[in-house]
């Protein structure tokens, strides 16, 4: 149907957008502000309580408050930006038993989301 | 005028003993047990007013909480269940437990003083009406505290309010409490009608009656003809819920639209029942603060009467979206637009009266001027929603919420607060603080407009009413935040008046008999009035008796009423010539007992139908005890 192409079209500008943020000086290359919007768009908040995201108060998954200070991610990964991005993009490859679905998150989105989550201290 | 003139007009010199005797005769028992036996109209009126303002405060707090919930998108302060209970309670309490009772309360207190008599026609019935109201209000708020408050909206549409979609006691409580308030309002209405028609001071013919008394009379007639419709509809609903009748069940031939017709046949006049006494208050205040007779007395009376009549022909304009035939509904568009004429006549009679007058801008006058600004806007949006196509866009949206708050707060609450400042010295004997009054007015006026004006736009931008939350993307957040800020300002404004009132009870400047130099009879007696209201019933020769007396430096009164029992003069309906003397009953516990008996029945039926029978006989026995003639039987 028409949904998929529509989404791709909408996703496209994102790729362009990321291009202009390379100069940003941060420990992470991603943009937390865009990450915030990506979190809303992918629907993370339906399962997770995420501070700062409107309506993100789900109870299905663990709350993500102060996620930046945790030692492990999902109980299996050391908490680093790279691992966080991997977990967001392909959770089932890391933990085959997880209930967290693969949401087809693009690399750039995952980077922005990670950047936002690391602001949660 | 055909008065029984005394043979020669002699000066009256009162002996202190006789006055003290009269005061004892009309004395209201004090203390806790005494409280339940008081029947004097001023006691009952004051209770109605105070109780109603307490409900106003509580329902206002509910409104503020709703505003906080809506201040920003997707807030978690109130969930849907609580929010739905809150708006149902806010509407129900404001309409039924604040607006009508407070208007009745003011009328019960002021009207007998204004028409120059010592009490109302049925003092015990008055007390009965109050207790029913009080018990009803307490039960309703009790249900909120127990978390089982009604939640189907203040107009309680079926089938949502039916047993299937609203199980639990909430709607039962609503239906029952509505019956309570109907009983209370109807007793007060009959009471006011008879008092106004039969107990006016000699000489106060209909065309000399103060405009507030006219307004109270029209309000009372409207209550008499409007309330029965909601009595029947709420009875049918409670039968559906309690004993499985099928009035509103579609599958069994019932008709949900019947509820809407009956409810709005009552509900539309209801709005004018609240508005009409406020119009009387405005005229009263304008006359006093311009210090001259009002222009267009007859036009103002006819307008109020016309508004009363026409308001019964408008109810379908609440039902434009229900799919009724377009042609039939158009009649109601025309009728609704017609209301603009009596309203216009009133407004311009007032403007003509204000024109070039030496107006004293005391607090009551400010609230009245605030009324003009707000009510004109509310009236114009009222004409807009009378258009069927336009109404299909704004019906059940925040536009309508804005509209009726403009009409009700601007049209009724602002004049009412003005009336409180105006009559407070008479009721309490002390003045309220003017500076605080002006602060209160300006904050309330500004806060009101910040709160409700943006709602017009919200409605047009698609925000339906009665939603507990909305998504950020709808773009309604900013205006809602503005409205919430306005609501807080409005609350501070009203709060200052509350503090002012409490403060003035002990600290206010003593008022004296007639601090505003007003022309009507309530200002002819002490402040607060003695237990008997008037030492002598005055005789009236124009619409402005107190101004006459000032000019002539003399006044005429009635003599011959006994001091050892509660006697009042009865006068004829049209020209108020004396036709007899009525002996009124004194303090009694039976009104309270009857109210408790009736409450037992009404509240009991929520749990079991047998309480209908129990209640019936309890009320019967208490009424027999109430009316049973005590020996010695009176012979003169």
């Amino acid at each position, binding site marked *: 149907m028409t949904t998929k192409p529509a989404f791709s079209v909408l996703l496209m500008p994102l790729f362009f957008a990321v291009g202009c943020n390379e100069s940003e000086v941060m420990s992470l290359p991603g943009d937390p502000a865009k990450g915030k919007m990506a979190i809303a768009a992918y629907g993370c908040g339906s399962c997770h309580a995420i501070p700062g995201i409107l309506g993100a108060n789900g109870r299905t998954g663990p709350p993500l408050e102060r996620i930046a200070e945790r030692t492990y991610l999902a109980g299996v990964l050391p908490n680093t930006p790279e691992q966080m991005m991997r977990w967001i993009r392909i959770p089932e490859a890391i933990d085959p038993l997880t209930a967290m679905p693969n949401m087809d998150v693009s690399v750039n989105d995952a980077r922005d989301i990670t950047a936002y989550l690391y602001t949660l201290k | 005028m055909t*008065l*029984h*003139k*005394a043979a020669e*007009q*002699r*000066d*009256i010199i009162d002996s202190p003993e006789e006055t003290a005797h009269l005061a004892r005769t009309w004395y209201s028992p004090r203390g806790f047990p005494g409280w339940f036996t008081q029947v004097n109209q001023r006691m009952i009126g004051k209770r109605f007013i105070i109780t109603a303002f307490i409900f106003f405060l509580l329902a206002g707090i509910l409104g503020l909480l709703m505003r906080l919930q809506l201040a920003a998108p997707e807030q978690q302060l109130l969930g849907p269940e609580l929010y739905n209970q809150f708006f149902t309670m806010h509407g129900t309490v404001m309409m039924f437990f604040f607006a009508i009772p407070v208007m009745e309360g003011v009328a019960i207190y002021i009207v007998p003083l204004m028409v120059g008599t010592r009490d109302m*026609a*049925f003092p015990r*019935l008055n007390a009965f009406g109050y207790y029913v109201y009080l018990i009803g209000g307490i039960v309703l708020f009790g249900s909120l505290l127990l978390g089982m408050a009604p939640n189907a909206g203040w107009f309680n549409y079926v089938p949502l309010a039916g047993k299937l979609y609203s199980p639990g006691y909430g709607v039962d409580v609503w239906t029952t409490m509505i019956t309570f308030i109907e009983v209370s309002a*109807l007793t007060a209405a*009959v009471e006011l*009608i*008879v*008092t106004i*028609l*039969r107990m006016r001071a*000699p000489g106060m013919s209909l065309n000399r009656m103060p405009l507030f008394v006219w307004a109270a009379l029209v309000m009372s007639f409207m209550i*008499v*003809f409007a309330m*029965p*419709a909601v009595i*029947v509809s709420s*009875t*049918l609903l409670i*039968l*559906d819920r309690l*004993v*499985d*009748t*099928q*009035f509103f069940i579609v599958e*069994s*031939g*019932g008709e949900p639209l*019947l509820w809407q017709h009956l409810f709005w046949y009552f509900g539309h006049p209801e709005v004018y029942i609240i508005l009409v006494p406020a119009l009387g208050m405005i005229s009263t205040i304008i006359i006093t603060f311009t210090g001259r007779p009002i222009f267009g007395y007859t036009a103002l009376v006819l307008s109020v009467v016309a508004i009363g009549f026409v308001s019964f022909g408008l109810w379908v304009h609440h039902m434009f979206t229900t799919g009724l035939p377009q042609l039939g509904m158009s009649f109601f568009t025309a009728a609704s637009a017609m209301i603009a004429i009596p309203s216009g006549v009133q407004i311009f009679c007032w403007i003509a009266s204000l024109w070039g007058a030496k107006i004293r801008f005391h607090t009551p006058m400010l609230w009245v001027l605030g009324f003009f600004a707000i009510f004109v806007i509310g009236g114009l949006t009222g004409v807009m929603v009378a258009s069927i196509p336009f109404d299909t866009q704004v019906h059940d949206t925040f536009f309508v919420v804005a509209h009726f708050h403009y009409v009700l707060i601007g049209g009724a609450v602002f004049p009412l607060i003005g009336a409180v400042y105006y009559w407070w010295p008479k009721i309490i004997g002390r003045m309220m603080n003017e500076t605080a009054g002006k602060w209160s007015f300006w904050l309330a006026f500004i806060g009101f407009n910040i709160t409700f004006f943006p709602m017009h736009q919200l409605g047009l931008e698609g925000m339906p009413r009665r939603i507990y939350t909305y998504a950020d993307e709808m773009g309604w957040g900013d205006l809602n935040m503005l409205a919430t800020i306005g609501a807080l300002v409005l609350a501070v404004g009203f709060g200052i008046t509350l503090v002012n009132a409490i403060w003035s009870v002990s600290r206010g400047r003593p008022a004296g008999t007639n601090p505003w130099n007003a022309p009507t009879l309530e200002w002819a007696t002490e402040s607060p009035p003695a237990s008997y209201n008037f030492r002598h019933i005055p*005789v009236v020769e124009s619409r402005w008796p107190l101004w006459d007396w000032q000019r002539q430096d*003399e*006044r*005429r*009164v*009635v*003599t*011959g*009423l*006994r001091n050892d029992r509660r*006697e009042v003069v*009865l006068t004829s309906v049209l020209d108020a010539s*004396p*036709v*007899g*003397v*009525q*002996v009124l009953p004194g303090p009694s516990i039976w009104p309270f007992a009857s109210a408790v008996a009736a409450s037992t029945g009404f509240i009991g039926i929520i749990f079991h139908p047998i309480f209908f029978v129990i209640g019936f006989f309890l009320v*019967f026995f208490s009424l027999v005890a109430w009316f049973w*003639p005590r020996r010695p*039987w*009176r*012979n003169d």
Partner: protein
Amino acid sequence: MRVLEAVDVSGMSRFNPDRRAPLWWGILGLITIESAVVLTFCVSYLYLAAYAETWPPTGKVPPILWPSINLGLLLLSSFTMYLAGQGINRGDKRVLAIGVTTSVLLATVVLVLRSLELMAYEFSWKDHAYGSIVWAISVFHYVHVTSIVVGSAVVAILAWRGYFTRERQIGVVVDTNYWYFVCIAWIPFYLLLYWVPRLYVG
């Protein structure tokens, strides 16, 4: 300020057993309110009938004999009530007592007959909207007849004890007026419940 005597009411009647009495107006107010209730019931009945496919749903018209007899008895009881009122107007306490008592007895007969009729209704209020409105109106009026019976019984007791006199009779006046109202209110209900279905079915 001089205070002058303008009207002296000391010689006026303290009993007002007619339209001068506030209570006469009060009961008129009650009757007005209740008439509006009666009217609203009638409108509700007709509204439901207008939207129904068949009215009554069974297509069977209700029997008409006993309701007509009830109507006659109620009107007769109003007449005896009227005679009672005329009696006390002349100061005749005996006629008053007998008249009120007769009316109470007649209305009691009506109550018994109505009870039998209600028991014989072939439908329940739970069956359909027709059953609901017929029962509601029937019970509404039944309760009113009950209240005039018990209320007037009290008036009768006071009458036999000689309380009422030609002056002291406002209680009788209001009781009589309310009695007329309850009896007359039966006429629209009678036409609705027993004749309108005939028009519909016929």
